[in-house]
């Protein structure tokens, strides 16, 4: 809405200092100026975004053997259907999406509501504390979790041992490795989502709470009927970005478990990395990349359609 009007405003804006030239020239000059401004960005976009995008799409239809490239059509895409490792990586992503994302958003919401209370002291400090995990270096955080979750002598197992529960093989058993990954992801990203949700909460005026209380609504009713519905777009934002993040998950599980044991924490992007850079199977890796992109687009669109309707009112 704003974009199309901008050039005309420029056109008719401050009167040109120089003598106005022919109408054609006048129309052309702003276009040139626009290109001069947009040019570098467009060039960078073409070089680092459009070109790789197109090249990888083409590559996903090829296969390489001893340095020669062959066109194989949809073969690389077909391979995924009976590739247990890829299917396992999708399953793992599904588990994280179904378990970790709702738990994290729920926790984030509770935290945001808590941080928004007027009786809470040192609110700024609390917010910073909860946001901190999101700014730690990935590797540092993964290493800390590795130390915490070590089977022998790890802090978590020491505490468990003190209450007579005993040692859990956190990172070396497939099930517990999944649990470890989910816990570490939740630790890292809950505060981040809480801060975004908090911003949403603060956009809601005091009068809403007052109106609800005049209408006789208790605290719980106020939140479930009045506040949360208004927070919907913000929650949607958190859900979609978290879903995208989950589908792109790489660093955490790569450092923590390398996708193992037994592929229990393998994600499509870790698999893509292995296929491309370790197995040197570039065509297949490109195909996996495109399937991940398609999945992200599809899931985001679904979520948008399912929960975003309210915004269109």
């Amino acid at each position: 809405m704003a974009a199309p009007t901008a050039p005309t405003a420029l056109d008719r804006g401050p009167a040109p200092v120089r003598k106005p030239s022919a109408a054609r020239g006048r129309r052309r000059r702003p276009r040139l100026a626009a290109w001069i401004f947009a040019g570098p960005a467009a060039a960078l976009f073409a070089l680092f975004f459009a070109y790789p995008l197109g090249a990888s799409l083409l590559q996903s239809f090829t296969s390489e053997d001893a340095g020669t490239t062959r066109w194989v059509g949809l073969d690389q895409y077909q391979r995924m259907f009976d590739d247990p490792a890829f299917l396992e990586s999708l399953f793992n992503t599904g588990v994280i999406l179904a378990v970790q994302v709702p738990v994290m958003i729920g926790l984030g919401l509770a935290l945001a509501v808590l941080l928004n209370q007027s009786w809470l002291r040192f609110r700024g400090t609390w917010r910073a504390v909860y946001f901190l995990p999101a700014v730690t270096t990935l590797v540092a955080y993964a290493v800390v979790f590795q130390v915490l979750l070590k089977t022998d002598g790890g802090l978590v197992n020491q505490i468990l041992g003190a209450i007579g529960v005993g040692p859990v093989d956190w990172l070396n058993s497939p099930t517990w490795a999944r649990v470890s990954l989910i816990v570490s992801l939740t630790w890292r990203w809950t505060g981040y989502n809480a801060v975004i949700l908090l911003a949403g909460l603060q956009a809601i005026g005091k009068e809403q709470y007052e109106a609800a209380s005049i209408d006789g609504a208790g605290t719980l009713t106020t939140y479930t009927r009045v506040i949360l519905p208004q927070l919907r777009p913000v929650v949607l934002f958190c859900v979609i970005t978290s879903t995208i993040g989950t589908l792109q998950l790489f660093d955490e599980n790569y450092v923590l478990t390398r996708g193992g044991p037994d592929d229990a924490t393998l994600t499509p992007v870790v698999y893509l990395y292995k296929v491309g850079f370790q197995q040197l199977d570039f065509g297949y890796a490109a195909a996996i990349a495109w399937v991940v992109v398609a999945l992200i687009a599809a899931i985001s669109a679904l979520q948008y359609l399912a929960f975003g309707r309210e915004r269109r009112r």
Partner: protein
Amino acid sequence: MSTRPTRRAVLATGLAATASSLLSGCAMGGVGGGGRAPEIDGKADDKGGKVSGRITVWSWDVAAKAMKRLAGDFEKRHPGTTVDVVDIGYDNAYDKITIGLRGGTGLADVLTVEGDHMPRYIGNFPGGFYDLMSLGGRYGGDFERAAWHTVTGPGGKLYALPWDIGPCALYYRTDHFRAAGVDPRSLLTWDDYVKAGIRIKKATGHKLIIQDPTDPGILPMLLQQQGQYYFEGGRVAVDTPAAVKALTLMKTLSDEGLVAYEKGWDGLVTGTKEGKAATTPTAAWWTGTLTSEMPELKGRFEVVPLPGFTADGIRTSNIGGSTLAVPAQSKNPRLAWAFIEFLLTGKNNQVSMLGREGLFPAYLPALDDPYLSERQDYFGGQRTLDVFARLARNIPPVEYDKDDAKATDIMISAVTGVMLHGRDPRRALGSAAGQLARATGRKRVA
């Protein structure tokens, strides 16, 4: 997990972020590896031909240390040359090399590549390296044959020169064995080994072996001992009787509770330090790790040859070891080759790298050096290097393949399935073979 906190155009931002992070990684321009391996100008080898200029060498860890140390000697012998050794770190090394080969630019003049990685690069980037046959072919008889096998390609091409190898033996804790009353010299077969493990565990509570649950563990070693690897004649061979035998042994170790699971290299080192396992079946270079990382355990370790699958079977294998190659992008291949030749084809430099950096030479003449028969204080006065030197001559050459990385990934699943979930080895290997055949478009041996 979240990407960008822009509120507008959530979808677009998310997609852009995904696409750029995922796709740019997988779309690297031209194919740098196609075509045929170029040859270095033959005149370079004439003793009169003088080399000059500058080269960059990529390596890591002790290997980089060794080259930095000897580069000075080389420069002195060849005035007007500069050898720049860069320690690129093991964690990024192969990503860097792969990207350089794929993109056709950006590589150093000399690359360190581990022996079992070499066939993968030769297979995928046959034009990515100089063919050294006309210059280095005459050294063929001087190098350990399994290592030589890994650097030669189809059509009699020589893609690298072997540097060090990793002949395997069984390191054992003398105290644990003594406490259980087990004579390590009596471990002739893997069956003896399992029986000894059960006794040691009963007597001392210690397990027998440490294994990484994200790794195929001792499987490659057990396969090579039987003269095979993942492919045979280009066909998938992961479900051969030899493979079933190997994985069944690993299952037995696991079923008897003799395996301590520790992730990664650090897990192996700390686990060994803490005395979790009574034995470590591994390569000669492990001596360096023991002496430098756990000096306090001096006198607790000795080595014997690996147990065999039969009492008169092969008692060793190879793990690791590396090679030096000259990528086709090198601007000064003559100097690159001169440096490699200086470093690897002389007894003195090889022995000094064994003594100082623990790099066990693939260059056989070096194994006759008196240094190898010296007693090692750390190993209770045992002539440890001599054990490895004798074993090194019996390493069975096996067929490494460009698809080994794929095979390894699939085999990790088979191994963990059997060891952690108690699956049947024969069936696990059968399905692994099927998967590998599909993924590589190859036939199966069995």
